[in-house]
């Protein structure tokens, strides 16, 4: 039995399948060539690293200690850098391509206690282990290149729905990794809402209870969902934001609650 979490323990099947499809797409392969030719990763890294605060042993020893612990839990041998930005609209992101790093917002960090932060760090590092940073970067380059290079627009449309779907379901992987790292049902469900609600409001859902306050909303969501394939396809193309009821459902199924 391994001392650390393995990719197969937490990566969601849909995440794995869609990521492979995306990386296999001709337009995305073209984006990879463009990124290498124009050194776009270097530019990306330069812009972010020169504009955000690198967290170090000197200025944030507590966070770095948690990050190293999270890396150990996933059996990662290469340390990952973490940067901070002052942005109320963001939470935590995986950035980079060959040398991935994390970017967390100061506002989001304030809302997390130590255990929650450890879980979040494990979840995002799990995303790095699953190669999410590569997919995210290439999709960004593809979007950029559409406007300036001769990539057929149809190729973009073909990938549009898949990429949005993947951007939503990658969160299933994060949620699973969070749960495996913390072992806490309450914290795992709480972290779904931390970016959008304050602690007092989240407390009211009573996630430590067998039947929590969010279930009713999930039932309402399930009634509306799947009514029409075309509608679902249209939603899929339009939205790349993870849907909380779906995440809630997925993690409950995974954890067997």
């Amino acid at each position, binding site marked *: 039995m391994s001392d650390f979490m393995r990719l197969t323990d937490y990566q969601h099947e849909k995440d794995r399948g869609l990521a492979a499809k995306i990386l296999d797409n001709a337009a995305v392969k073209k984006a990879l060539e463009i990124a290498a030719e*124009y050194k776009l990763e270097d530019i990306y890294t330069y812009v972010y*690293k020169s504009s955000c605060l690198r967290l170090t042993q000197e200025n944030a020893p507590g966070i770095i200690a948690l990050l190293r612990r999270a890396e150990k839990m996933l059996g990662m041998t290469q340390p990952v850098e973490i*940067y901070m930005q002052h942005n109320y609209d963001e939470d935590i992101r995986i950035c980079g391509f060959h040398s991935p790093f994390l970017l967390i917002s100061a506002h989001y960090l304030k809302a997390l206690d130590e255990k929650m932060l450890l879980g979040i760090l494990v979840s995002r590092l799990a995303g790095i282990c699953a190669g999410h940073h590569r997919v995210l970067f290439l999709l960004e380059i593809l979007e950029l290149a559409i406007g300036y290079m001769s990539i057929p627009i149809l190729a973009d449309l073909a990938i549009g729905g898949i990429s949005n779907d993947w951007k939503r379901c990658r969160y299933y992987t994060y949620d699973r990794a969070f749960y495996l790292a913390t072992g806490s049902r309450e914290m795992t469900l709480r972290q779904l809402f931390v970016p959008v609600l304050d602690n007092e409001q989240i407390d009211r859902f009573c996630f430590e209870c067998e039947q929590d306050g969010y279930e009713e909303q999930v039932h309402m969501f399930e009634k509306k969902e799947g009514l029409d394939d075309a509608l679902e396809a249209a939603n899929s193309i339009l939205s790349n934001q993870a849907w909380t009821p779906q995440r809630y459902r997925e993690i409950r199924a995974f954890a067997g609650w």
Partner: protein
Amino acid sequence: MQDYRYPNEEKALNIVLKNGVFKALLSAFQSVSASLTSIARVMDHCLVVTEYTQPRLHRLYRKAMKMLDIPYEVPLYLDEGYVLTAKTVGTDGDCVVVISSECLESCTDEQLMAVLGHELGHIAMGHVRNINLFGEIDMLLSQIPKVGMVAAVGVKALLLDWMRYADFTADRAAAIAAGSVMPMLQMIACSMGYEAGKMKLDVRGMLQDTCMLPEKIGLLGKAYIQQIQPTLEAPNGLWRIQELYRWSASWQCRKEWPQLHYSNAYLFELEGEKDAAAAYERGMKTLETDNERGLALLHVAALGNAKAMNELGMAYLLGYNGLTQSPQVGVAYLKRAAQLGNAQALFHLGMLCYTGMDGGKGQDRNMAMRLMRMAAGREERAKRFLDEQGEDRLRLSEGTVQALLDAYRAEFPHHSCLLLDAISKKIDNYARAFLYIPPDETICAAEVFFGKMIAVTDCAVYSSCEGEIPLCIPFGEMAKEQLAGKMFYEDREVSIGGRVVYRYVEEETARSMMPLLVLLKKQLTA
């Protein structure tokens, strides 16, 4: 005019100005956006900052303008927002500064002055038009026919290059306005994500960070930078910190703005008041040459140590410790030390007032006596001076004070000021520190108004005065001077002998301290 422009800025600007697309954009900007509509939008949803609406912010803004020698008025507005920056709206010659409420809530006075100074630096150097043009460039490009994507990306890249240098210049202005590089370094770090009080600001680490842009980046690379950078709150923040640090450590800064050079705590590996005091003691005991002592004094005074400021003031007055004699600078340092309550500085300043050598309007015995009284408890020479001059203060007896207050209470029972018995030890201590009231005077009444303070003791009326030692009008003077009130917008301004001491809302006369001052005046002239 102070010359703090970043060297490459003008060169980069000349390249931009020669670009044909840019010239077309400029023309479109002037006719479409320039000033009226953007400023009108600001006036619609932002709060104008005045002495009454935001006294603290107004005071700091005026001080920053003074530090940067900006002679004309640029209106300041306050906007609801979470970003830790300010911005300038409009165009050169017709603009307003808008600062976010997050700055007002989270920043210290020095940091606020740095943020405001940054914008004033942009205004002083004529950057406003070009910066605001960049923000509207996509809209303006649509109005210019036959401008292809390549040309558009090209001109944006040139502007972004120039804007980086413009920010370096404005950061220097911010440091000059704040009187120290530290606040601006902190503000840049905060917009990058640094949280004061929760993290250590590792400037040394940031100075060692290197992250280079590839040498030749093509059109797509430039477009990529243009896409990502505007989404970040502090683009090029790391370079700005490194550049500001480098400039503060430079010979030019040391020569022209020594207080900035020596304010750089990272340069001298010192942080905080405790280290400054220790450094002062160490420096005076161990340094051998005059020049070294002079430099040490400059350095420690820049960190806010009052003892060093006093010593530095005297050094400039008399021209020792390797410093060129400069009475004006000397008096300024003595005033700063006196404002921090340093007894020796109060004594020295008192002597200068008495002899008319403080650069003011000649001999001012009243001010001298007052300064000596403030120092008397802690400085033997001040006590001896007072003994030699003789006590000539008009002091009301305890009975007279009580009768006065009783009459005021009886006629105006709903007054808003604090009277004798209601003044707790804490308030008494605060008022004495804030208004420089000598320990041998009893505070009879006190009130805070519009962010300032007034107190009436048994000897004088004290009132806070922006940026200077608080005003003191002894009763002897008050008996001879006129007590007058005149309307100032919707408020009534009260003056004694032409000096404004108090302000209140006209409808609240019965609650204000004005009737007490009237009763006091009657008592003194009776």
